[in-house]
């Protein structure tokens, strides 16, 4: 037997489809690597010949310019690297809040457009068709100029009861300053959140098993809000407020929300909500009508039928295009540059690029950042989608 095996003619490797496939792939990889290498090499050589500074040495140099909004410590003596982080955080801030608001508004509108109430459905339809069809840049410029024009000047500020101001320099609110004793309240808050999660899952399991309902909402509110407040009261209110006050030109102190930020957040949320509304509407329509009818015949009220039967099933259809909308919102936030909001593109791909002149490095970093944000967002959404997906048995 053994002899037969050894004498069997062995096909040369080129006729082996698997080996051939691997060889082609290797060849392609080598080609791509070579192209990339020669592009980089060529660029470096050309830049050196033109005596244009290269490399990432600029990262630690002093930036020298001021930034209107930074959530981390930044001054004109900070480095370009620091300015990069300020810009990135500003981008993430407006994108994250934009995603939250656009989602809330978008779901409301999507559902409203399917409402049996003629007026509600028409109004939602009107919103979607108008907002979707006007370029975002125009809307941002509109909101920015509307915000600036509609709000009073600094000397005629709206006074918000409780010590806040609203004017064309922004929204100014009292800033809570927590004393050392406030950490007990923080601990209470964390405990409250954990307890609420445990309670909710217990209540759900019990409802599944026995059909008995628990007052989930009230218990959650009590644990998350009332408990920390009670602890705060017991520890003698270790909270003071730093109130904004008017100086010679501007309002100082307190929490400051810039008009540029408000306009951008407003514009992005309103615009993206119109697209999300359509995604939601399509998702709901994709759920077979029989599901709603079955829910009704079980005695569920329309609101509950929507919440418990239709929406969970429509999420499978909604999530993938919703992810695209989130990515769009993040990328659209780069239009900030038009209305003076200091996002990553305005600070880094704008001022830093100009001051250092290192276009290649700065643009490569900026592209890498947006790519990373997009990949992380869609990764998270895919995780969520996998949990939502229909589990086939």
């Amino acid at each position: 037997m053994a002899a037969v095996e050894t004498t069997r003619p062995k096909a040369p490797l080129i006729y082996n489809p698997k080996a051939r496939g691997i060889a082609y792939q290797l060849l392609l990889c080598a080609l791509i690597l070579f192209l990339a290498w020669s592009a980089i090499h060529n660029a470096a050589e050309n830049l050196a010949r033109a005596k244009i500074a290269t490399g990432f040495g600029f990262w630690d140099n002093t930036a020298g310019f001021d930034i209107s909004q930074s959530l981390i410590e930044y001054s004109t003596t900070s480095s370009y690297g620091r300015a990069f982080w300020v810009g990135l955080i500003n981008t993430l801030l407006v994108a994250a809040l934009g995603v939250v608001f656009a989602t809330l508004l978008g779901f409301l509108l999507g559902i409203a457009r399917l409402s049996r109430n003629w007026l509600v459905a028409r109004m939602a339809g009107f919103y979607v068709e108008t907002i979707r069809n006007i370029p975002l840049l125009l809307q941002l410029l509109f909101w920015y100029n509307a915000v600036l024009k509609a709000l009073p000047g600094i000397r005629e500020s709206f006074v918000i009861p409780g010590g806040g101001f609203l004017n064309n320099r922004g929204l100014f609110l009292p800033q809570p300053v927590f004393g050392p004793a406030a950490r007990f309240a923080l601990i209470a808050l964390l405990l409250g959140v954990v307890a609420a999660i445990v309670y909710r899952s217990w209540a759900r399991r019990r409802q599944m098993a026995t059909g008995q309902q628990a007052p989930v909402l009230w218990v959650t509110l009590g644990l998350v809000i009332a408990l920390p407040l009670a602890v705060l009261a017991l520890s003698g209110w270790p909270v003071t407020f730093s109130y904004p006050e008017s100086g010679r030109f501007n309002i100082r102190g307190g929490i400051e929300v810039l008009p540029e930020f408000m306009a951008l957040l407003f514009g992005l949320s309103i615009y993206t909500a119109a697209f999300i509304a359509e995604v939601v509407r399509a998702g709901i329509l994709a759920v077979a009508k029989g599901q709603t009818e079955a829910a009704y015949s079980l005695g569920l009220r329309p609101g509950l039928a929507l919440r418990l039967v239709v929406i969970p099933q429509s999420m499978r259809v909604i999530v993938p295009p919703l992810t695209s909308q989130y990515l769009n919102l993040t990328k659209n936030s780069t239009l900030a540059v038009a209305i003076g909001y200091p996002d990553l593109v305005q600070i880094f791909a704008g001022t830093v690029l100009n001051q250092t002149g290192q276009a290649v490095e700065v643009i490569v970093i900026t592209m890498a950042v947006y790519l990373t944000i997009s990949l992380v967002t869609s990764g998270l959404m895919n995780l969520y989608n996998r949990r939502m997906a229909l589990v086939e048995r």
Partner: protein
Amino acid sequence: MRGVLACVLGGLVIKSVVLRLALAAAVAIAASAASAQTLNTIKSRGGINCGSNGTLAGFGLPDSQGRWTGLDVDFCKALAAAIFNDPNKAKFVPLTAKDRFTALQSGEVDVLARNTTWTSSRDTSLGLNFTAINYFDGQGFIVRKALKVNSALELGDAAVCVQQGTTTELNLADYFRANKMKLKTVTFATSTEALKAYDAGRCDAYTTDASGLAGERLRLANVNDHIILPEVISKEPLGPAVRHGDDQWFDIVKWTHYAMVNAEEFGITQANVDDQKKSDNPDIKRLLGTEGKHGEALGLSDDWAYRIIKHVGNYGEAFERNVGQGSPLKIARGLNGLWNKGGLQFAPPVR
């Protein structure tokens, strides 16, 4: 319709993002063009590409018929006159402050004459060379009269609108730091947006080069409600820049400015240049090319300076026409007067 609108509007900003991306790539690939013969490229192309300001009265601004005017525009026309004997062979590419250097590095423009301040880092690490100073300037502030501010030193805590990618942005931060004043900067990509925000009350002050203030204030809704503060907080020597690596082109750009200044010094004007050609003054003979081979040494014809003066005029004429008494800006010669009249404009001799 919607598509068209979207394109036009989107174009405004997208253009700058995509443009920067494209330019970044182009910098890497085309930087080699720097060492090429710029003059030959210009001649075979049949025109000069000038990086210009597109919105600044007095320096670079197209009118409704697309005719460009301004001191920097006239400078480019002078270059075109010297090379082609035709000032209309200059093509103007409007650039924002922050995109201008990338455009020059990548070879999109041959020369950057866009009220650009000569600084050491721009002259070295950006891969550029500044040729000459065609306008001596400094940075100033404009504020609302109603604020009752008389000095920039009273601006502590003020909000200031400024354009990004400028020395203005840096001087502003320095000035407030040096004087221990708090500052709220609001930064915009274009001066149009920055000025509009100032006009809408977003900022207490707007700051830029004094020459820019003179032009920009005319765009405010109510010019008389604003005053320019007396302080000049920086030195802003503005001048045309070229890429590193082409000495001939560097010389041509530099000597175009000097020809205009020398012409003013010798009293040669657009009107009398033909008469002056008959002059016996050896300085004038050399400048106008009736004696010596000074144009040839630059790679131009010997009457290069004659062409400049014939088509564009001398430095003083260009100044008065664009920013001086013949313009709405009405800026006095001041530092930009000739050296023998109390100013700083001093040109090396043609010999």
